[in-house]
C-alpha cells in the first residue's frame, strides 16, 4: 500500500496587529484550510471504524428507535470503504461485541459486511447505560491501528445512569487523542451536556436525531466524512514569546470548541492543541495571547501558529504556518479598529455561551436570567446572520424585536426543540473574508 500524499494546508491569519501603547492582549483568527486527500490508487489514507449502538432497554420505547438504529448501523457498514477495519459494539451497562464476536477489527469486504449486517439485524434492547464501558472497548479495538485515521460513532437514547460522572470523565480522558468520536442522541431522554463532553473531548460532532427516520442518512454521512479524512493527529502548535500567556485557544468554526485546557507542552515556549483528523475542510481558530506591553514603534511576534501532523513514529511535520503580530502605535485610528473576523467570532462564541446559560436558567426556573440570555442570543444570531440558530431560538422564545433582543419565553416548548437548540448552540456561521488588515 503506497502512502497517500499529505493534503495541502493553508493558514491565514486575520487580526488587527496594531495596539495602543501599554496594551498587551493580541487577538487573531487563524483560518486553516485543507485540500483533503490526494486520491491515490489505494483510495485514500488508512482508516479504522467502530460503531457503538445503544442497546439499553429504553431503545424499545418506542421500538422505532431500535429498528432505526439497526437500519442506520447497516447503512454505516455499507459506507465503510473496502479494506477498512471495522467493528460494531452494542452498548448497555456493559459493552459487548456484535461483529466480530471477539475484540478485534475486521477489514470490510462483501462477506464481512454481510455478516456484520446479519449480526446487527439480531440486535435487541435490554439493560442499562454505562458509556465509559463502550468507550473503553472502542479504545481497545483501535489498539494496533495507531497509524490509521481512527473514527467512532456513538449512538445513545438515554442518560449515562449506570455509572458515576467520574467514570465517564475518566474514560473520555483516556480516549483523548486515541480516536475521534461523533455522538448522536436519539429521542429526547438523553443529556445534551453528556454527549457534548464526549464529543468535545474526542473532537467529534454532536447532534440530536429527533426523528429516527433520519438516522440512516446521518450515519452514512458520518462514515463518509471519516473515510474522506486524509490525515490524522493534526495539532495546532502555538509558539509564543517568553513572558507571554495564551489566554485561550478556541475552534470557532464550524463549531465552538474551547481547546485551551488541551495544551500539550512541546518546548519551553511552544504547546500543541489537538485538532483531530482532517479531510477537505476549513476551520477557524480564535487565539488570544497576552504579551508584555510594548512602546510605540515596537513590533513583536505574539504567536506563531503551525499545523503539525504527528506520524506513527511521533515525528512532527509542519503542514502550514501563520504569524500573529503585535505592533504598537500612537495612531488611534489604527489601534481602535476591531478586526471583523475577531469581532464576528467573539460574537459567535458569546452566542453559544448565552444559549447554554439561558437554557440552563430556564430549566432551574430562573426566568429573568433565561429571558435576558436568550434575548441576547436572538440579538447576536440576527446580527451575525446565523439563520439556523435564529430559527431554533424562535421555537423557544417569542421574538418581539431581534435588534434589541426583546423576547418572551414561550410557555410551552417541545423537548426536542429545546435539545436541538442546546445541541446546535455551538454551530457558527462564517463571515466574508478579505479584511486581513482589519
Amino acid at each position, binding site marked *: 500500500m503506497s502512502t497517500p500524499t499529505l493534503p495541502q494546508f493553508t493558514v491565514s491569519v486575520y487580526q488587527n496587529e496594531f495596539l495602543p501603547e501599554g496594551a498587551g492582549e493580541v487577538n487573531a483568527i487563524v483560518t486553516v484550510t485543507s485540500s483533503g486527500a490526494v486520491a491515490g490508487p489505494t483510495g485514500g489514507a488508512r482508516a479504522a471504524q467502530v460503531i457503538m449502538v445503544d442497546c439499553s432497554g429504553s431503545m424499545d420505547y418506542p421500538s422505532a428507535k431500535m429498528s432505526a438504529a439497526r437500519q442506520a448501523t447497516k447503512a454505516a457498514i455499507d459506507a465503510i470503504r473496502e479494506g477498512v477495519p471495522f467493528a460494531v459494539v452494542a452498548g448497555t451497562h456493559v459493552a459487548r461485541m456484535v461483529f466480530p464476536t471477539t475484540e478485534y477489527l475486521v477489514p470490510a469486504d462483501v462477506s464481512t459486511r454481510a455478516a456484520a449486517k446479519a449480526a446487527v439485524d439480531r440486535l435487541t434492547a435490554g439493560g442499562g447505560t454505562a458509556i465509559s464501558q463502550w468507550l473503553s472497548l472502542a479504545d481497545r479495538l483501535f489498539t494496533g491501528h495507531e497509524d490509521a485515521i481512527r473514527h467512532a460513532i456513538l449512538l445513545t437514547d438515554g442518560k449515562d445512569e449506570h455509572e458515576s460522572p467520574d467514570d465517564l470523565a475518566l474514560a473520555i480522558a483516556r480516549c483523548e487523542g486515541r480516536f475521534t468520536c461523533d455522538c448522536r442522541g436519539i429521542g429526547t431522554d438523553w443529556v445534551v451536556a453528556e454527549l457534548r463532553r464526549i464529543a468535545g473531548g474526542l473532537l467529534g460532532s454532536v447532534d440530536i436525531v429527533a426523528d429516527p427516520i433520519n438516522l440512516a442518512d446521518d450515519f452514512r454521512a458520518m462514515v463518509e466524512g471519516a473515510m474522506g479524512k486524509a490525515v490524522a493527529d493534526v495539532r495546532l502548535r502555538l509558539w509564543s*514569546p*517568553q513572558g507571554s500567556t495564551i489566554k485561550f485557544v478556541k475552534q470557532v468554526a464550524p463549531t465552538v470548541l474551547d481547546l485551551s485546557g488541551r495544551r500539550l507542552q512541546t518546548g519551553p515556549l511552544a504547546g500543541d492543541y489537538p485538532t483531530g483528523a482532517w479531510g477537505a475542510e476549513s476551520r477557524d481558530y480564535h487565539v488570544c495571547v497576552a504579551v508584555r506591553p510594548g512602546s510605540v*514603534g*515596537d*513590533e*513583536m*511576534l505574539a504567536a*506563531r501558529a503551525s499545523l503539525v501532523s504527528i506520524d506513527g513514529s511521533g515525528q512532527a511535520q509542519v503542514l502550514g504556518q501563520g504569524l500573529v503580530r503585535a505592533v504598537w502605535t500612537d495612531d488611534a485610528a489604527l489601534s481602535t479598529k476591531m478586526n471583523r473576523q475577531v469581532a464576528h467570532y467573539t460574537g459567535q462564541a458569546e452566542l453559544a455561551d448565552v444559549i447554554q446559560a439561558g437554557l440552563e436558567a430556564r430549566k432551574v426556573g430562573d426566568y429573568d436570567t433565561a429571558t435576558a440570555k436568550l434575548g441576547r442570543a436572538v440579538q447576536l444570531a440576527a446580527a451575525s446572520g446565523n439563520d439556523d440558530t435564529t430559527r431554533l431560538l424562535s421555537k423557544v422564545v417569542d421574538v418581539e424585536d431581534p435588534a434589541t433582543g426583546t423576547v418572551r419565553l414561550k410557555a410551552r416548548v417541545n423537548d426536542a426543540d429545546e435539545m436541538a437548540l442546546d445541541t446546535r448552540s455551538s454551530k457558527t456561521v462564517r463571515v466574508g473574508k478579505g479584511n486581513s488588515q482589519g
Partner: protein
Amino acid sequence: MTDPRTQAPPGPPDARTCSGCGAHVLPGDGYCEECGTDLLVRRNAPPGSATLPCPDCGGTAFTDGYCDNCGRLAPSPRDRWERDLGVVAGVSDRGLRHSRNEDSMAFAVIGEDTEYPAIVIVVCDGVSSSIDPQRASQLAANTTLDHLVRALRQGEPAPASTSAAIQSAQQAVTTLAEEYRDRSDAPSCTIATAVVERGRVTVGWVGDSRVYWLAADGGVSRRLTDDDTWAGQLIAGGAVNEAEAYKAPHAHAILRWIGPDAPPEPPHVRDFAPEGPGLVLACSDGLWNYVWDAADLAGLAGLTANGWSGLAAACVSLTAVALQGGGQDNITTVLAYYPPTASPETTEIVSSNGTAPSDEGIEP
C-alpha cells in the same frame, strides 16, 4: 562595495585596481578589461546583512524575522545606515515610532575625475499600508539607480533617462507583486531622484518624497518637486501655503505611487539650472514633515555660519532634527554637492571656517 579611494592601491602611485575583481587597470580605462566593471562609477554600499543580537533579550536566534526567545522584531541593519561617497552622502533612519525602516536610498558618482561628472540620487519611501514596503523601496531605488547610471554612461540626457528609469522601477515593483496573494496591498513606494550635472539638476518623482535646492552664498533655496498629495496639489496651485495645506486630515494621503495598480501617468520630471554653488537634498517625508521650508533646511544643513563639517555630518544633523521632533516616520536624507565635484569650488560654498568634504567612508 568598497570605496576604492579609501584603500591605498598597491604598487606605483599611478596604478589602480578594479573594485570588482582586483585586476590592475590603467588610469584612462573606462571599464575593467578583466571583468567589465565600470571604473568610472562609485556606488553606495547596500544595507549590511549582519545578524545583530536582540536588543531586548540578547538572543541571537531568529525565525521569520523575530527573536526566538522574546518575539521582538529582529534588529535590522536597515534600522539606521549611513553612507558617504565624499561628494554625496546619505543617512536612512527608522525614526522613533515605526518598527521598521521602510525607506531606501541609492546613489552613485559617475566620472568624478572627468570633464562631465555626475551624481545620481534615488530616495524611496515604502507605503506603510502595503505588505513588505521595504522590498518595494529597495528594489525601486536599485532599479532606478542602475538604469540611470547605465543611461548616463551611454551619454543619454538626464531628463529622458530619469523618466525611463522610474518607469523601469514601476515595472520591477509590479513584477514583485506577483509574489503576493493580494495585489491591492502588495509592496509599494514613492520615489524621488536627482541627477546633478554641471549646469543642470534634473529631478524626477512619484509620490511625496522631495528634492530641494539648498543655495550657498545667500542664494535662494527652493523645493524642486511638488508632492503627489491633496495638499501638494493645493500648494502647487498656489491656493494655500504649506503649513495650512498639511493641516487637513487627509492631506498626506498620496495620489500616486510606485507599485501594482498605480495610476498610469508618466513620472514627473523637471530640470533646474543653479545660479551658483549649493547642495541638492533628496529626502523622505520623515524629514520634511518637521522642516519643509527650503531656507530652513539650508540653515540646518550647515550652510550658514554654524560651520561646515561635510555632507555626511550635515545628513546626520538633519536626521537628528527629525528625531528630536518626534521621529514619527522613517527619515532618509541624501545630500550632494553642486557642482558635482570635490574640487575647490565646492569647498568654497561653505563658510570660511569649514573644512573640505571628506573622502572617508562613515559606513558603520
